[in-house]
């Protein structure tokens, strides 16, 4: 080794499974060159997807299909791979690991990902030929072999793994009996009703069950009283298996004797009664273990040089056996190994989906009830449907579903986010599609969709593409799918559908995203945390935010910069300085960019009213600048399309009309009907009300665009029912509706309050919008904001608290006071006029 070059740190990884390799992948993303990495794997295979062993057993996939990282991957990433070498010892003093064959590797950091071992029942006969556990490729291969040769199988354990094994063996032609200690199947994931439905449906598939049955002994074939198959109910002398053992090596299994005395014939016994964290190696090295290698929130063991992730760890007293938590651990661990030091693992919520084709089962959270919880149950045994959701303090805490699991992903999302479900409680049981959130005409039965059906309308991604990406690239999270396929990465209305496809393709335990959603890839922090920090620590600039919150990137990205710029301006009006380079092009050039790089210009027409002189100027501008298209918009404005960027300042000046802000996350339009001035039905002067609102609110930047409407009577010709704030005049005053939306997710505005005067409309509407401006997340429309915080919260802040309402309204007026019109006072508005001319062009 060239001593002049600094030596890389050495990372040894013990365990070549999903958790260990995932940690390496995450590490390579963060710090590809920091470590020289060595991996030990006891199995002779590269990293494969252990969860998909069930489909392999069932003959639905092959071993080739489930390899996650082929051997070449290790080589490409410069990782030394020791396959088929079991590590025998960790020497913490010399800092090296020694394999059984003597291979020794030194380390600076060690990562233990030794996984778990199947639990073996302490009964006689477990070492007979044909008694297997269900853990790895080797077990699976032996089960497939046995299924080809023999007829009777007994699976001990009616949990997730046991049932998947039983189903696989049945599909391979065996007669399968499941022996389960508890009164119902999957008792940790299901309540009794759901378990009974499950059992029924598995019985219809031909499986047999022995519940509340204790295994006493596994009996060798030679000790079976008569030929297998005729043996049921015949007693065998206890200890026969032990006697068989004495006669020679590994006689074949013949049956399973239950405590009741009954004997089940068995040529194959699969033991799936649970797993135990594999801590032998750690324990021998003197690391603190307690039903798992004990780790802290940074995944460090009691030796700070040694990390542990996966099924082998005990984190805050929990050991996890599902893949999603392991991936969260891997991510945190990699972050610390990469010296970033900002991730923390705080435990996971888990959900379960049984991977048995034709059986739809989903469970998540705590569904056992208890004090303070309420159950909502839907049971239709005839149709094989059962759903139970458990609510505590207005939040969803658990869900069990059988037969119709379409909404599993949605329930799990509600559960993770811990959102209040008080507002949707009456519809909760009927699923997401009943909330008017279907996005795609309620077509949300992902599994039933044909492969060529389009899932993501924005990016033109069909189901087949997503399924293929999930299978080929081994994707696990919604984020991964978004990155690889673009599905659900634009408008997001198909997110639920994509999650369902992810679930039905890869199994339910994949779909978990981290509980807290980071603002973007540059940080761990959420929108809420960033907003709070800006307020609490009086941060006034983007660099200050990045420094204070230890951003990972020097100047952020196209996602976080606009968000933070907005948060600064909305939190500290007149103090924080706008950064044009952190705005999307539309807000930087104060016009809407079009597909060909030209722009559109929409001048403001207060309340949708215009004059002959304005129309003449518009016509002149169209002629002078040869603007190809003139169009009337849905918000009662005139849109000039196809303006060259160079012409924008001239167009604005010649129009002599205020900016319409049609390009901004800001107040767009106040749409009005003609109202009592002209209309024979009109009860109120809606046009004037709309103009007053527009004069009060224009130049108001917000988390997203804001549209208002004012109608002069309940006929509602201005479509107030689908606006962020919709006002409807009635004989006795004005009704205010909020959080409507006519876009991606058509949403009817909800009734907010009724007031009498114009001044009250301004104050109430303004206060509501200021609340949204102060607490909404960037790019969150009012409908999403209200869904998140609850309409009751907005009512509490704006209606119940009169002083608070006036304060909100005043803060809004303060923020808007003196705000310049960017079209006509560009220098005050900070518009960089240089952008309109190319450089090097002759002036």
């Amino acid at each position, binding site marked *: 080794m060239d001593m002049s070059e600094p030596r890389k740190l050495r990372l040894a990884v013990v365990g070549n499974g999903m958790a260990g390799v995932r940690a390496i992948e995450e590490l390579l993303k963060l710090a590809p060159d920091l470590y020289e990495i060595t991996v030990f794997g006891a199995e002779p295979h590269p990293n494969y997807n252990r969860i998909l062993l069930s489909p392999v057993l069932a003959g639905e996939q092959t071993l080739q299909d489930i390899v996650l990282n082929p051997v070449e991957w290790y080589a490409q990433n410069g990782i030394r791979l020791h396959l088929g070498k079991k590590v025998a010892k960790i020497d913490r003093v010399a800092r090296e690991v020694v394999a059984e064959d003597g291979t020794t590797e030194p380390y600076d950091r060690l990562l233990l990902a030794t996984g778990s071992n199947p639990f073996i029942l302490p009964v006689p006969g477990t070492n007979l030929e044909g008694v297997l556990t269900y853990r790895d490729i080797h077990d699976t291969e032996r089960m497939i072999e046995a299924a080809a040769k023999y007829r009777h199988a007994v699976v001990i354990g009616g949990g997730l793994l046991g049932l998947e094994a039983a189903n696989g063996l049945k599909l391979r032609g065996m007669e399968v009996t499941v022996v389960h200690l508890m009164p119902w199947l999957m008792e940790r994931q299901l309540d009794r009703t759901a378990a009974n439905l499950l059992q029924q449906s598995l019985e219809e598939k031909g499986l047999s069950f022995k519940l509340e049955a204790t295994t006493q002994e596994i009996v060798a074939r030679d000790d079976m009283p008569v030929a297998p198959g005729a043996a049921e109910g015949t007693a065998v002398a206890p200890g026969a298996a032990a006697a068989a053992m004495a006669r020679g090596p590994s006689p074949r299994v013949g049956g399973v004797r239950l405590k009741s005395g009954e004997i089940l014939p068995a040529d194959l016994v699969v033991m799936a009664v649970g797993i135990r964290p594999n801590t032998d190696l750690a324990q021998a090295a003197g690391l603190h273990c307690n039903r798992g290698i004990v780790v802290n929130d940074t995944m460090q063991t009691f030796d700070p040089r040694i990390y542990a992730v996966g099924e082998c760890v005990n984190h805050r007293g929990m050991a996890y056996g599902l893949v999603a938590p392991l991936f969260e651990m891997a991510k945190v661990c990699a972050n610390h190994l990469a010296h970033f030091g900002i991730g923390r693992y705080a435990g996971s919520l888990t959900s379960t989906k049984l991977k048995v084709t034709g059986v739809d089962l989903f469970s998540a959270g705590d569904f056992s009830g208890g004090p303070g919880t309420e159950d909502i149950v839907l049971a239709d045994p005839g149709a094989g449907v059962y759903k139970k959701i458990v609510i505590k303090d207005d939040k969803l805490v658990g869900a069990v579903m059988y037969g119709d699991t379409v909404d599993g992903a949605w329930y799990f999302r509600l559960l993770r986010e811990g959102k209040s479900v008080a507002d949707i409680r009456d519809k909760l049981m009927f699923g997401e599609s009943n909330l008017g959130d279907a996005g795609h005409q309620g077509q949300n039965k992902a599994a039933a969709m044909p492969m060529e059906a389009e899932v993501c309308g924005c990016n033109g991604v069909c189901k087949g593409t997503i399924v293929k990406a999930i299978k080929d690239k081994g994707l696990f999270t919604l984020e991964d799918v978004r990155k690889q396929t673009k599905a659900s990465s634009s408008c997001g209305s198909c997110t639920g559908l994509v999650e369902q496809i992810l679930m039905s393709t890869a199994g339910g335990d994949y779909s978990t995203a981290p509980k807290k959603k980071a603002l973007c890839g540059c940080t761990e922090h959420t929108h809420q945390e960033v907003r709070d920090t800006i307020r609490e620590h009086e941060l006034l600039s983007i660099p200050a935010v990045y420094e204070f919150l230890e951003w990972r990137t020097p100047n*952020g990205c196209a996602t976080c910069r606009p968000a933070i710029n907005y948060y600064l301006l909305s939190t500290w009006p007149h103090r924080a300085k706008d950064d044009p*380079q952190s705005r999307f092009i539309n807000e930087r*050039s104060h016009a809407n960019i079009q597909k060909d790089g030209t722009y559109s210009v929409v001048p403001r027409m207060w309340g949708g009213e215009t004059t002959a002189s304005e129309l003449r100027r518009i016509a002149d501008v169209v002629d002078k600048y040869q603007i190809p298209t003139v169009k009337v918009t849905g918000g009662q404005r005139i849109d000039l399309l196809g303006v060259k960027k160079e012409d924008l300042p001239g167009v604005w000046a010649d129009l002599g009309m205020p900016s319409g802000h049609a390009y901004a996350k800001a107040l767009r339009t106040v749409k009005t009907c003609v109202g009592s001035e002209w209309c024979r039905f009109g009860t109120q002067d809606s046009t004037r009300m709309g103009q007053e609102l527009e004069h009060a609110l224009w130049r108001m930047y917000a988390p997203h665009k804001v549209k208002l409407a004012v109608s002069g009577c309940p006929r509602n010709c201005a479509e107030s029912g689908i606006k962020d704030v919709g006002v409807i005049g009635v004989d006795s005053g004005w009704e205010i509706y909020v959080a409507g939306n006519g876009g991606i997710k058509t949403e009817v505005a909800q009734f907010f309050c009724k007031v009498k005067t114009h001044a009250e409309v301004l104050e109430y509407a303004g206060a509501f919008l200021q609340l949204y401006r102060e607490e909404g997340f960037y790019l969150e429309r009012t409908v999403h904001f209200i869904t998140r915080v609850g309409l009751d919260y907005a009512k509490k802040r704006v209606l119940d608290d009169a002083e608070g309402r006036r304060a909100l309204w005043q803060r809004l007026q303060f923020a808007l006071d003196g705000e310049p019109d960017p079209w006509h006072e560009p220098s005050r508005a900070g518009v960089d006029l240089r952008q309109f001319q*190319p450089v*090097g*062009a002759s002036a």
Partner: protein
Amino acid sequence: MKVAVCRLDDIPRLGARRFRGDDGKTIAIFRTGGDEVFALRDQCPHKGGPLSQGIVFGESVSCPLHGWCISLKSGEAAAPDVGSVERFEVEVSDGVVRLDCRSADGHGHPVEGSCRPVEGNCRPVEERGPIDAAPACAGATSPCTSIPPK
């Protein structure tokens, strides 16, 4: 073959300016947070969006039309998108940005109708006048780095 096109100060930090060649095609000149300067054909490989109008961060620009991320250094789109955009050599000396309008990707992928190495193709900045009058690189505090050789 490099011609002066503007001063470094004419390009906002984390921003870009457009330069129009005599062929009518536009080259985008970017300035990073660390005052490095890069030049790319102002045309996203996806749907031709003007990259000069995007948000610049790190050594990337995000296209204003559909958010593809293009590396300023390599001209390549970030995964999972695939595509690349023509690069041009550009450097800063004495606070003046000098651009070579010939594609730096030479044999790689000739872009149809792109700025060809024809004499006088790029209008020298002197014709515009004011550049020499302006102070060169505004003081020692403003670092003027040149683009690393490709």
